[in-house]
């Protein structure tokens, strides 16, 4: 495979796009770069999983989990809400292509490929949500345990 085209370029694109998204969410400049790097890491991890030949949903699940871990760690470190890094970090995972294909097959009336594309986009969105869900649940549990022990 072409490393430049398939790995480096998407990472750079997601870095730039997520910094621009940071402007839309009114994040200050000094947090923006860290958030953008989070998005870049997400894309890198996602490509890594994809190359290793895992199932698509698993790829999305683990990438979303990875970005949640990054967001939780960064938020603890600089004392900001976790949202700030998490919202920007999952941007490269959004299944824009599948959502578009769902819509376009609906317009053309091709029911068979519509149901296929619809299932894929709902499944991907679900996997991303579950990835965030899993990590946040574990972090919450850890916080409750540590607070009680003190």
């Amino acid at each position, binding site marked *: 495979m072409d490393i430049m085209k398939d790995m480096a*370029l*998407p990472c750079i*694109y*997601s870095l*730039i*796009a997520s*910094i*621009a*998204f940071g*402007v*839309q*969410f*009114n*994040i*200050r400049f000094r947090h923006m770069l860290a958030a953008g790097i989070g998005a870049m890491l997400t894309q890198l991890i996602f490509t890594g999983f994809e190359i290793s030949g895992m199932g698509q949903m698993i790829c999305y699940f683990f990438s979303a989990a990875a970005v949640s871990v990054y967001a939780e760690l960064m938020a603890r470190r600089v*004392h*900001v*809400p*976790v*949202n*700030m890094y*998490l*919202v920007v970090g*999952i*941007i*490269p995972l*959004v299944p*824009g*292509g599948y*959502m*578009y294909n*769902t*819509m*376009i097959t*609906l*317009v053309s009336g091709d029911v068979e490929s519509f149901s296929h594309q619809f299932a894929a986009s709902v499944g991907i*969105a679900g996997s*991303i*949500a579950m990835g*965030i*869900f899993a990590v*946040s*649940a574990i972090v*919450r549990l850890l916080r409750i345990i540590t607070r009680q022990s003190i």
Partner: protein
Amino acid sequence: MEITAKELLQITSRIGSMLIEYGAEIYRVEDSIYRIAAAYGFYGGTSGKDKKIEVFAIPASLIITVNDGSEVPLTQTVRISSRETNLDRVDKLNNLSRFICVEKPDTATINKHISEICERKIYNYPVRLISYAVVGATFALFFGGTPFDALFAGLISMIVFAVSIFVNKVKPSVFFQSVIGSVVIASIAVIVSKAGLTGSFDKIIIGASMNLVPGITLTNCMRDFIAGDFLAGMYTLTEAILTAVGMAVGAASAIAVFNMI
């Protein structure tokens, strides 16, 4: 520093409604208010203390009841009708509530801090316009478009931003907002490609539509579900689904109309 129930109600309702408005998770709103109240000796739930506070928040409204041990409790309800994401102010409000818990300042100091947060600068229109264009253009490239596609996706994103400023003045629902946005995107993209300027319009539409994706609603929804705020979670989940459906409806109807012509 002791404060009265009335002052506590005024401070907490102001901070809470601002947190909801700027896109904080609902469990964070309730948690912050309970912590601020606890700093002044008001406790929630079945603590058995004389001074009590109860908070109920969903993304559309905030209800706070304070009782300082007298017979008549005080209640304030705040209806939150419009929300705009501003994570910088959420961060600063979070710092403020942490500061209140440690220092227990008087109301005048707190009100001064709140006004300072309200005056914090947001990015001006040109910067936001450029950010829309950059998002559109880079995502067109990201999903495999040509540089020409990226150029048009960027231009269309700018138009969408300009349209959304005008549309938001009448405070429409999220569904209507995303329908309008994606009708604009899809119709201009189809016109551009029918005029022979680019090969296909799909990468342009995908790239420019990324500006409308409900990213923050979905993350907030998941985090509220984990915290046990199911009502708030369902509210934001519905909002995210409606936005996505609105995007599909808008683009589909625009493309269908242009296919007929």
